[in-house]
């Protein structure tokens, strides 16, 4: 077994809403190993972005409560002082943000922005920094690196900017990359280019990657292991092949059935009943997905749903997966039974 790079243990991130704290990340445990891409997938409000920001310590300190452990390099990041944390961020952990249009300082040159983390984490002369920066720009597939070095963000296209954001994350040879929806804001062909670039870089550099995304296509293209989140909890963890071949949790299965690109015909897409409850309205007792699959009887759920190893290295929360079915599938079956009898 490979060495773990990052161990998140029972992480709970709560936000203050009108005086009370509500957990957006509710007891999440995830381990990322060397040279492993772990995708965290879920819809908006499931807590995946809050999780990434918690690991990096990027939440506003006021109004946010963090519990649990984020173990990295022998220390718990959650308990570090700001100055100790600054020695880790940008050096051993690099972060890639969603929107390259806003993630770069509009008033600083590209060169300056890539060199900045080196100022704090590496002892390099100005010329060494420049040399390294130009090399990074080439590595992320920018060909006219000399020119781009001098340019400002607004002079570059979205795809180019995202390459720059990746170069910043890679500036100090991190062992872990946190990528928060790195391709969501990009055009289709640019998205494919950035995915391929990240795959290539990962192959070369053997960094661990946490990939936060809502797009199961991106998961299928990039991940080694997948963590599915719903309403602040992990509901399923499996290797990527296993997850796409044999999804277990009702939420994972529903999600896979609602993507058009996953369907061959013009059949109806699966619709998940109801809506994701808000943080304040979420019922934290019992199976959180139960209200959205009301046709599954209450006794099929666990009272306090736990993660179970349903297959080797395949974990799923609650027992409702065992009897779960899609009502639209049963309609046909019943008719079939009726005509047969």
């Amino acid at each position, binding site marked *: 077994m490979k060495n773990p790079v990052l161990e998140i243990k029972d992480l709970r991130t709560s936000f203050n809403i009108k005086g009370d704290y509500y957990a957006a990340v509710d007891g999440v445990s995830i381990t990322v190993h060397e040279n492993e891409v772990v995708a965290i997938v879920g819809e908006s409000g499931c807590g995946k972005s809050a999780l990434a920001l918690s690991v990096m310590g990027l939440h506003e300190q006021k109004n946010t409560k963090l519990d649990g452990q984020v173990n990295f390099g022998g220390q718990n990041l959650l308990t570090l002082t700001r*100055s100790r944390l600054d020695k880790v961020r*940008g050096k051993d952990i690099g972060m890639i943000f969603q929107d390259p249009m806003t993630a770069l*300082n509009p008033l600083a040159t590209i060169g300056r922005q890539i060199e900045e983390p080196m100022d704090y984490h590496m002892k390099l002369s100005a010329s060494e920094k420049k040399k390294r920066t130009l090399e990074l720009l080439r590595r992320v597939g920018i060909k006219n690196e000399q020119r781009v070095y001098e340019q*400002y963000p*607004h002079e570059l296209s979205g795809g180019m900017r995202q390459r720059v954001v990746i170069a910043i994350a890679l500036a100090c040879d991190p062992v872990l990359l946190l990528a928060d929806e790195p391709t969501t804001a990009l055009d289709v062909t640019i998205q494919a280019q950035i995915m391929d670039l990240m795959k290539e870089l990962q192959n070369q550099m053997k960094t661990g990657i946490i990939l936060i995304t809502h797009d199961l296509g991106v998961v299928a293209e990039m991940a080694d292991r997948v963590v599915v989140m719903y309403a602040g909890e992990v509901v399923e963890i499996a290797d990527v092949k296993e997850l796409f071949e044999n999804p277990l949790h009702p939420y994972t299965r529903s999600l896979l059935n609602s993507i058009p690109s996953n369907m061959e015909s013009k059949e109806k897409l699966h619709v998940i009943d109801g809506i994701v409850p808000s943080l304040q309205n979420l019922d934290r007792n019992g199976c959180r997905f139960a209200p959205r699959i009301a046709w599954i009887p209450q006794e099929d759920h666990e009272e306090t749903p736990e993660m179970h190893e349903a297959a080797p290295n395949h974990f799923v929360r609650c027992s409702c997966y065992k009897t779960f079915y899609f009502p639209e599938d049963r309609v046909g079956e019943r008719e079939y039974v009726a005509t047969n009898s």
Partner: protein
Amino acid sequence: MLKFILRRTLLMIPQLILLSLVIFMLAKAMPGDAITGAFMGNPDATPEQIEKIREKFGLNDPWYVQYGRWLGKAVQGDFGMSYTHQQPVTTLIAGRVENTVLLSLFTAIMIYLIAIPLGIIAGRWTDSWADKLIVTYNYVAFATPTFVFALLMLFVFAFVLGWFPYTGSVDIKIESGTWAYMVSRAEHLVLPVMSGAIIGTVGTIQYLRNDIIDQKTKEYIKTARAKGVPEGRVYSRHILRNSLLPIAAFLGYEITGLIGGSVFIETIFSYQGLGQLFIQSINLRDFTVVTALVLISGTAVVVGTMLSDIILSLVDPRIRIE
């Protein structure tokens, strides 16, 4: 870049012509003219005499003739004679320009010295007690009329405490050019400058505080923190740098704007500047002086705006013109 500056300069010409036209019309529309003012206290003047003088000053010509004559001379720096002072307006103004420029310049510097640190503190530590204090000060300063505050300063520091002189721009008994003369000028400046500055910080503090709060939530600040940039540097290298650039750009505008805006302060402190002259001339219906002053301060605003545009395009790469 040169092309942009040239274009921007040419664009000023129609603005200035329009400005001069409006000023001329307004001046004409005011009740009474120079003659009524000058003869107000003289019941012996006969209508024939007044008519003769009106004719002599060209006040009976059609408006466009008067406008053309006035503008043509103004461009050459000749604003005509002041009826009440019986000397060329240009000489009259020149004697006071220095005082007003000094006052505006020091007021602007003071405004920045007070407003920038306060704006930064309030923006960086929002909702702290310091922020609440600064915001309160800002509201009070916003609500207080300049002349009330200036009178208060005058009363406390000049009248009660006697720390500073309360009238004029220099002690007239001291010979000009000496060290003592400079000190006297400085002493005379303190109260007017402080009165203007303490009230004048409102806009800058407000802008800076809001902009810092706004910048703090920007994504690229998250990027900076994720790079491991220490918090102090996040502010100095990213937030403050970006928030202060527009303030630097507005410098030109702010200073030229003050030239027309120190009317109350100068009048209250009997400071021999353009603002005081302006009020006096209005009271005396000294039409030539008033129009000249409005034209000058109006031009200052137009030029200041242009300067700000040019500075902004120099410091912000996003609007840099190729």
